[in-house]
């Protein structure tokens, strides 16, 4: 029987998971739930990719202030993703541009991709979850 501290290596296969975030951060629970599931997948050392498109780009916008709507601002948690070794973050170009945003407005480093590149990335995945 291994000691608990020797039980670091999680068994089981590593799969390529992509989480596609398409909705605004507040008003529905989707964005927060997606983030929770991402953290769980990362804790189980899965190969995690995140995509932000449509209103989903607002999830990682800097300087969110949720005081007036009485819910927790969970945007600082996206900055924890690096510590979870989640470093494949993609933003769809048109979604960002059409909302008047640039990478400077985002709370985490991302790669900007167009729709064709996104399609290629999706081809590489084993599991795609849309939120």
């Amino acid at each position, binding site marked *: 029987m291994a000691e*608990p*501290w020797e039980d670091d290596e999680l068994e089981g296969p590593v799969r390529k998971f992509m989480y596609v975030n398409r909705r605004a951060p507040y008003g529905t629970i989707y964005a927060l739930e997606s983030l*929770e599931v991402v*953290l*769980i*997948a990362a804790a189980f050392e899965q190969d995690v990719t995140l995509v932000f498109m449509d209103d989903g780009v607002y999830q990682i916008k800097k300087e969110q202030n949720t005081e007036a709507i009485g819910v927790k601002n969970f945007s600082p948690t996206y900055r924890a993703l690096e510590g979870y070794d989640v470093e494949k973050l993609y933003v769809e170009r048109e979604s960002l541009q059409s909302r008047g945003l640039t990478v400077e407005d985002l709370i985490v480093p991302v790669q900007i991709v167009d729709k064709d590149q996104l399609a290629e990335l999706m081809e590489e995945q084993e599991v795609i979850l849309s939120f």
Partner: protein
Amino acid sequence: MAIDVNGKSLEVDEEGYLADLNQWEPDVATIMAKADGSDLSDAHWEVINFLREYYEEYQIAPAVRVLTKAIGKKLGKDKGNSKYLYELFPYGPAKQACKYAGLPKPTGCV
């Protein structure tokens, strides 16, 4: 459920995690540790304070693997390993230390 800390009754969930992390004070950790049959050393406090800072910055309690790595970065390699952290917190470093620190149970915690 609730625990008594300095004459105040603080609500906790069924696993003993503080319901409202704003109610935390150092004696919360001391009293929770006593209930588990241990006294907190400076080494324990180092991890508890680290967790509170981590939560302040990222708004989550880290998974154990992430905690171990982050502790290593901040406090040195001799402390950033599972053996050291399990010796301090035998019920599981993330789970037990987060509880003492007044944080929610870590997401993805097994």
